[in-house]
């Protein structure tokens, strides 16, 4: 009934689903179409029609060669047009249905259309022009630690080790970064952060691979351990001697010559500190390596079917050890972003749950590097939007705005992503 070679267990499920599938697909298509139409209707009724007819919307994009880049558009007309666009997308989805590949793009276009219409409204009703560049810059700044955390998750989980300990790895990275950064220098701090993250990775690896501890359990426990240890040492050493032990120099901004001069894109992407550039490099390297190199093939083989991988001579445990250590180091770098990249000091629980959000981004992004980056960016954007709105539109209670990133994640996960499939051997210890 299904292709030969799938496991018996999965076979059963597919057989069960096959009866309902066609019906369900139609329902799903119509449901999604209705969601598009609803979003379009909201855009028109609650956004476009709320913009006064003659008002101009001003969206600023920073500077280009010392000239201010402002986009001034008739807000209502633009928002109406965008609303109609979204409804048209919905109509297409209702009648024909987007394919598996085009649907995410359609959703993305609808989302952007809605956001632009919304920002037109904000610029008219809010207290200031909407600074699009600042919004996007903030999005990226907020997304970088999430990206690094999620990449750490990709490295571990693609090789079959669940990493719930991202938070703990980030926290210990943040701590070590601040400490060594104050003692020796910020760049050494970065190295120390990666090492500290990797050390947490060693704990994760040894206990999960050698002692076969349940990995979800282990991750939770390691998070508590990292929280306790960093808090303990912070209280015992760093806080009493803050001047010598907890004052790392914040990493300086490095402008990439040439590229940083490009309008909009330059200040957005190429005027940042080294952690951000490292994140770019890691995104590309991990994505290419995972799907195009021998290491990646082995990693995925070990994560999907360790026995088969072992049979062809791949050293399963070694691959897992290596990947978990690498993942820990990457997460540690993400943690350093908090202490060395922005705040310039460690404080208790400074990562404040970012590791868990990175974990959510990893699952949301379906365990692929680019998916995880997309999810992190979405989350970063929602957080940045929330910050901007709480300044520009004081009439919405800021506490409701604070929910925005989390609500957005729930809607995205429940509405767009649905059931995800982890690497088949994720979380299962391998015993020969």
């Amino acid at each position, binding site marked *: 009934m299904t292709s030969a070679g799938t496991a018996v*267990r999965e076979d*059963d499920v597919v057989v*069960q689903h096959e009866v309902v599938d066609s019906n369900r697909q139609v329902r799903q298509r119509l449901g999604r179409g209705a969601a598009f139409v609803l979003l379009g209707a909201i855009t028109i009724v609650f956004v476009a029609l709320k913009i006064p007819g003659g008002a101009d919307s001003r969206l600023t994009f920073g500077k280009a060669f010392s000239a201010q880049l402002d986009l001034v558009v008739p807000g209502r007309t633009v928002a109406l047009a965008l609303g109609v666009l979204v409804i048209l997308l919905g109509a297409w989805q209702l009648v024909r249905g987007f394919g598996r590949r085009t649907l995410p793009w359609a959703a993305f276009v609808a989302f952007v259309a809605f956001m632009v219409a919304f920002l037109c409204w904000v610029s008219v009703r809010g207290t200031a022009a909407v600074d699009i560049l600042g919004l996007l810059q903030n999005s990226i700044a907020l997304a970088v630690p999430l990206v690094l955390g999620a990449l750490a998750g990709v490295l571990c989980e693609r090789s079959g080790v*669940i990493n719930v300990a991202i938070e703990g790895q980030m926290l210990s990275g943040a701590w070590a970064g601040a400490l060594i950064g104050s003692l020796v220098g910020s760049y050494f701090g970065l190295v120390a952060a990666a090492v500290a993250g990797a050390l947490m990775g060693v704990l994760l690896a040894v*206990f999960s*691979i*050698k*002692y*076969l*501890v*349940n*990995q*979800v*359990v282990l991750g*939770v*426990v*390691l998070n*508590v*351990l990292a929280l*306790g*240890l960093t808090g*303990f040492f*912070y*209280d*015992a050493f760093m806080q009493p001697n803050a001047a010598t032990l907890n004052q790392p120099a914040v990493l300086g901004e490095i402008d990439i010559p040439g590229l940083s001069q490009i309008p909009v894109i330059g200040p957005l992407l190429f005027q940042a500190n080294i952690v951000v550039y490292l994140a770019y490099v890691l995104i590309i390297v991990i994505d290419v390596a995972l799907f195009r190199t021998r290491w990646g093939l082995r990693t995925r083989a070990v994560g999907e079917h360790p026995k088969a991988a072992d049979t062809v001579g791949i*050293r399963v*445990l*070694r691959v897992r050890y290596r990947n978990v250590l690498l993942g820990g180091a990457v997460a540690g770098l993400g943690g350093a972003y908090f202490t060395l990249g922005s705040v310039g000091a460690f404080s*208790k629980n400074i990562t404040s*749950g970012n590791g*868990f*959000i990175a*974990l*959510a981004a990893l*699952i*949301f992004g379906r365990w692929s590097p680019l998916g995880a980056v997309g999810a992190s960016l979405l989350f970063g954007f929602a957080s940045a939007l929330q910050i901007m709105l709480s300044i520009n539109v004081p009439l919405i*209670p800021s*506490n*409701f705005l604070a*929910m925005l*990133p*989390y*609500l957005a*994640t*729930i809607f995205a*996960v*429940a509405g767009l*992503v*649905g*059931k*995800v*499939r*982890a690497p*088949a051997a*994720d*979380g*299962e*210890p391998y*015993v*020969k």
Partner: protein
Amino acid sequence: MTQATSEAAAAASEPVPPAGEHEPPRRASAWNTILVTLLAFVTAMAIGAVLIAISDQATRSAASYFFSWPWDTFTNAGHAIANAYTALFEGAIFNPTTAANGTLAGYLGPISETLTNATPLILGGLSVGLAFRAGLFNIGGQGQIIMGAVFAGYVGFHWHMPAGLHVLAGIAAGMLGGALWGGLSGWLKAHTGAHEVITTIMLNYIAYSLLAYLLSVKGFQAPPYGQAISNPVEPNAMLFPLFGSSMRVNAGLFIALIAAAAVWWLLKYSTLGFRLRAVGANQFAARTAGMSVERSYTTVMVLAGLLCGLAGVTQILGVNTQITNDIDAGIGFDAITVALLGRANPVGIVFAGLLFGALHAGGSQMQTYTPIDLVQVIQSLIVLFIAAPAVIRAIFRMKASGAGVGAELAKGWNG
């Protein structure tokens, strides 16, 4: 590499249930389980002692001339460790200084604190443990506790009712609040496939923001509206204190014990409990046997939320009278370690809750000597060691026996 493989082989010869299959925890090794737990506790305390010594200023200064006169380092370290652990004991079990006053509170005060701290931990632990048994990972304790406290608190200060009824109404409201919040994650998983780890984490933040909003709304916020604190709960709605008003331990402890008994009965004797365990053990087999896996997800998350809601109830109607931002007091996450230490088994969870309650109660006393975060370190080390009994057995050269905690609990992301 060779060592790793031999270890792995040694572990494989033990009855570790391979993932994907399910075996109930073995009864025969009960004694061994207790021994491993005890030794894990001792080892964790020993590592904690090293940390105390490191954090002690006098010890560190003495260590600078360690090689010319090592004795000072050891005496100083010994003093620091003894001071800290004595304070821990005095805060959690018995304090001779206060007992010398001869008052009841002097004798029972520390025990009262331990029980007070244990109450929400037991309830939260039951919540996480129950979800574990159905194969779900409930990290949403924080949000569910907040919602439970908000509902219970609202009934507590906004409604006016006679004494007995008011408490019951508050408890019921808290259960409802937690159940709604937990059930939402379960429902989302059942109907859209959204992973409960994501939704419960996100709902934690949403509940936190919702509470922050409520604490800025008149009618909820206490006058004169300067602080983020709610109106005080009416005395009618408070859970009655067990040892008189001088001590904090209250009827919430009974709620926790009743809940533990209820969960024990549910898992052991009820049809629903059987269904939940079946889904947790192997959802594909459960589906084949005609059980509705989706409905089980919703049900178990409603129940888990309800239990966390009760933890919120004991927080607001038991110890605090006013809701603040940190009404959850980190219990949602501590509950996970409680559930793990208790091996997702109601009886074990009660004892685990008592142990961690004692650590928390003693930790605040210990603060004078060493940072309170040590409690968290010890807590996590205990769970780490009981999760990997092989480590403890290697240290103490014990014979091999049953699998570690969690081996029978939540598996991977794919259920």
